[in-house]
């Protein structure tokens, strides 16, 4: 019984939040890794692309709510996502046309592209803040819980409760749909295959008649969709704030690099590695240990390895360890 209680506590505070957070990071990292694989640079504007897509979704959500349309027990934002994706896609395609294409034609070194993406980041940052402001926005509505802690306790008769929030459930479901759709697209469709060919060997792909501009356009469309979905899921689960999205850049990059830049499956694995380490290291293990250890050994302190403020340190340390021992990442990504 104690072990079961320990497991419930663990699930409630570590497993469930980490799975949701991991899924959000994974979708974010997929976007970074796609840009890296096809356009061959680290996109520092990705966090702010997420913020922009989320902002558009929030505004559309407010519009729907004002029109009296809701999505029953689910958050209205899910209905508004397509609007967000469309706005975000328009923005990144316009950016590519006005900014990135010039440098692509010149075949500049990747680091110049990174600096250009910093300029783009400034602009996106300014746009989102001008339109919606720099403050916290909560836009989740509908049912709060799939199962609340009290219901769970009554149902099972256990001492500990397990709460699963709707947003956490939605995150997982949406993430699975997105990942399946993306892999189906990359592996089964003609466009997807041409993208992979382009990513593997640009010259060979050009020789076999693949239109590079089309590949780039499709990539940006996918990136816009991934960024918006990741941003909306994160915003529903926690809250929307432009600066937080900028800060997400670090765990997202860590996830993409840990998995191996340019490798989609690596991005997903990396997302979960980062999320689980962050949550596990900043969680106070006291109650789990109280259930699992005999009473004489039960700890007095919180048994929290690091305070939550140091969660960036966790992604950073994992990143450094991977860079030191396996610079191409877990799934052998590219290295330039």
């Amino acid at each position, binding site marked *: 019984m104690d072990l079961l209680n320990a497991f419930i506590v663990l699930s409630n505070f570590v497993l469930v939040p980490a799975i949701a957070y991991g899924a959000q990071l994974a979708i974010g990292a997929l976007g970074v890794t796609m840009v890296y694989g096809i356009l061959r640079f680290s996109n520092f504007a990705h966090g702010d692309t997420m913020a922009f897509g989320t902002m558009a979704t929030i505004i559309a959500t407010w519009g729907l709510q004002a029109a009296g349309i809701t999505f029953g027990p689910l958050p209205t934002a899910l209905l508004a996502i397509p609007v967000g994706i469309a706005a975000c896609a328009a923005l990144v395609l316009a950016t590519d046309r006005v900014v990135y294409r010039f440098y692509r034609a010149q075949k500049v070194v990747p680091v110049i592209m990174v600096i250009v993406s910093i300029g783009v980041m*400034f602009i996106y*940052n300014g746009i989102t803040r001008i339109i919606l402001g720099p403050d916290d926005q909560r836009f989740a509505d509908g049912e709060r819980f799939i199962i609340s802690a009290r219901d769970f306790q009554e149902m099972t008769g256990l001492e500990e409760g397990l709460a699963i929030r709707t947003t956490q459930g939605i995150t997982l479901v949406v993430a699975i749909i997105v990942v399946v759709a993306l892999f189906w697209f990359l592996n089964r469709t003609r466009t997807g295959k041409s993208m992979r060919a382009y990513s593997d060997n640009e010259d060979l792909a050009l020789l076999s008649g693949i239109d590079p501009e089309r590949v780039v356009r499709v990539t940006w469309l996918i990136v816009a969709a991934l960024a918006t979905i990741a941003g909306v899921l994160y915003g529903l689960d926690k809250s929307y704030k432009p600066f937080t999205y900028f800060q997400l850049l670090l765990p997202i990059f860590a996830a993409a690099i840990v998995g191996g830049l340019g490798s989609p499956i690596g991005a997903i694995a990396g997302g979960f590695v980062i999320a689980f380490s962050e949550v596990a290291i900043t969680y106070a293990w006291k109650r789990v240990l109280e259930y699992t250890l005999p009473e004489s050994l039960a700890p007095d302190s919180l048994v929290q390895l690091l305070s939550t403020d140091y969660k960036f340190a966790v992604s950073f340390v994992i990143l450094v360890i991977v860079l030191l021992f396996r610079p191409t990442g877990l799934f052998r990504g590219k290295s330039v």
Partner: protein
Amino acid sequence: MNDRLRAVLLFGLVALMIVGTGFVQSWNSALIILNMGLVSALMALGVNLQWGFAGLFNVGVMGFVALGGLAVVLTSMPPVGAAWSAGGLRILAGLALGAASIVAAILVWKKTSGRVRGWAVAAVLLVGFFAFRTVFDAGVEAVEAVDAATSGYLGGLGLPVLLAWPVGGLLAAGAAWIIGKTALGLRSDYLAIATLGIAEIVIAILKNEDWMSRGVKNVNGLPRPVPYEVDLQADPGFVERAGSIGLDPTTASTLLVKLGYSVLFTVVLVIVLVLAQLALRSPWGRMMRAIRDNETAARAMGKDVTGRHLQVFILGSAICGIAGAMMTTLDGQLTPTSYQPLRYTFLIWVMVIVGGSGNNLGAVLGGFFIWFAWVQVEPLGQAIMGIVTSGMEDGGLKRHLIDSVQHMRLLTMGVILLLVLRFSPRGLLPER
């Protein structure tokens, strides 16, 4: 137009803009812009050393600047005796224990091999971590309990504040050594992400380690290298002299204090600039640029590319640390929450790119120029928005538009950066 004339004209323009601010707004604001411009120019010089000389992409400038700020507290604040006796030694012992366990782990890694290695290192680190926490946490608790409202930290060494500037450089250099050891020699964007990470961690440490920096409670009243305004105003000789040039004592004292800072900062900037120019023209500088332009060829010529990169990375970061210490001295307080990556990392990058990467004078020019734009865009934007919204009736939209002016800066900086990169990628003063 030759390079020299161009440089003279552009620097003249900057001088004109600052003097113009003095006439149009006030001399106080002109001096504020000048002082922060000097600090920004120094930061830009540091980044230029890394990017312009060596092609290293450091996006952790904020972290090094913040370490410089921490150095001011650690060097110049008077020590808090009660806190030291409560748990100071315990904290030091804890830190020593932590460092020792890392060293032990590295030794174990070097001495063992095969399957034992990973487990042995993990075991050493785990034991070391818990030992560190046991010793360290109790000390921290004791120190932070000492008079939490006014101190609650160990204080510094009580040394003259000017000494904090080189110390800031040393702290930043130490951090740069750790990052450089891990991330240099890998791909260029890995260094970028590693530095981005370390900057966030430095800020997190400043915000949370109350025993060291008082965290978000800020350290106020840092000692100053220049006299206090109040003392000047109380000095009859000063009041008389101010009167003789037609200034009231209050204005005169604030101007004199700011001028004092300007002189100090100018001295540091000139020293660093001269050293950087000498370095650029020396064989060492030629080697750095050779490595930047073609790493493979330089390596084939027997140059130690990673070693040189580490060297220049440490030097550049140290300059950022010195600048950070100077800035905190100017502010008179350490406020960890005020460190924002957009302001302290990416803005410095805009300065370097706009000024002209690879050209020290260009970096200095960019520092002044962009800082001036950063300060003046807001009033300008407010004026423009005032005109745009003047015809509108009062309401949500008008208020929103006027509020949004403060975010105009980011947009403007992004646009400036992209325009320069596109149409004048070598910057205002190109590398020779």
